[in-house]
């Protein structure tokens, strides 16, 4: 009777030790996997905070092949003036502005693997130039500091560029 009780007691002690070892192993494995997980490199995720603003400042003041600034083409689009625009692939200022901005954004942010959304709006008016964006970069996405460019006269045409975080 005494022997059986002793055997039972040592059994339960062994089980206790096994449980402690298992817990320690699980904790160790958990910590190791956490450490070994690929960390995002700072340099890979580094984005200049004024990238969006610099992009808009550069693009809006750029003169196109028609010797007209991009901001003026957008203004012409909103004032229904089309004599300064038109190319082999576009017929009016709105599509000309869209094509020019799309080319610029694809040659830069697109090439650098950044997600973006470029939109042109004026007050509550319907958009005349479609948004230029990469799939997955919408108004709910986490974003970097946005860039704005205002084209007068009031109410101003607002060009907004958002760069989404990957």
């Amino acid at each position, binding site marked *: 009777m005494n022997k059986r009780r002793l055997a039972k007691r040592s059994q339960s002690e062994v089980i206790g030790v096994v449980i402690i070892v298992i817990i320690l192993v699980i904790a160790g494995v958990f910590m190791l996997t956490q450490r070994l997980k690929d960390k995002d490199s700072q*340099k890979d995720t580094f984005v200049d905070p004024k990238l969006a603003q610099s992009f808009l400042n550069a693009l809006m003041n750029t003169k196109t092949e028609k010797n007209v600034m991009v901001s003026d083409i957008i203004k012409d689009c909103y004032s229904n003036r089309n004599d300064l625009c038109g190319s082999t692939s576009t017929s009016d200022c709105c599509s000309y502005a869209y094509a020019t901005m799309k080319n610029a954004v694809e040659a830069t942010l697109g090439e650098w693997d950044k997600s973006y959304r470029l939109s042109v709006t004026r007050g509550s008016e319907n958009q005349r130039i479609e948004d230029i964006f990469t799939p997955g970069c919408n108004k709910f996405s986490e974003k970097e500091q946005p860039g704005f460019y205002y084209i007068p006269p009031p109410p101003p045409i607002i060009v907004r560029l958002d760069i989404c975080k990957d």
Partner: protein
Amino acid sequence: MNKKSQLQIMENVFVMLIIFIILVIAFVFVMVMQKSEQKDKLEEYKELELIKKAQVLNFLPEMQCSDNNNLDPDCYDILKIKTFKKYLETDQLYYRSMLGYIKIVVTRYDPSPDINKEIESWEIYDNKPEEYNGEMPLQFPVLLKDVTENSNYFGIIKLTLYS
């Protein structure tokens, strides 16, 4: 009775042995973790140094557009770029110590629908170390101003940081 106390002593010894082994394993584990953490921090520090280097363009008024001595950080003057490039071909001593191991290329890009291509490119500075572990490319969109033709172009500054 003697056997029982021997057994109890053995049991105590085993328990202490197991505790000791667990403590040694935990100590080794913590040491390894700390070592790798230090390594990570060192890597992070190196990356931050590289990122700091990327701000170097803010300290190059030699190429930036200026109007009545007001510098525009997002605008680069093509005439100044060409002159600065020529100057660097003859004398790099000062800039080597200031800029370190980097490469600066300025590219003019025309996004017009009928053109849509790179028009011109200037390699301003390239100081490649004899041995380097890798490079970090950084690009910035800028406005390129041609004062002789009174025209503005879309440009890209490409920085390559050697580490």
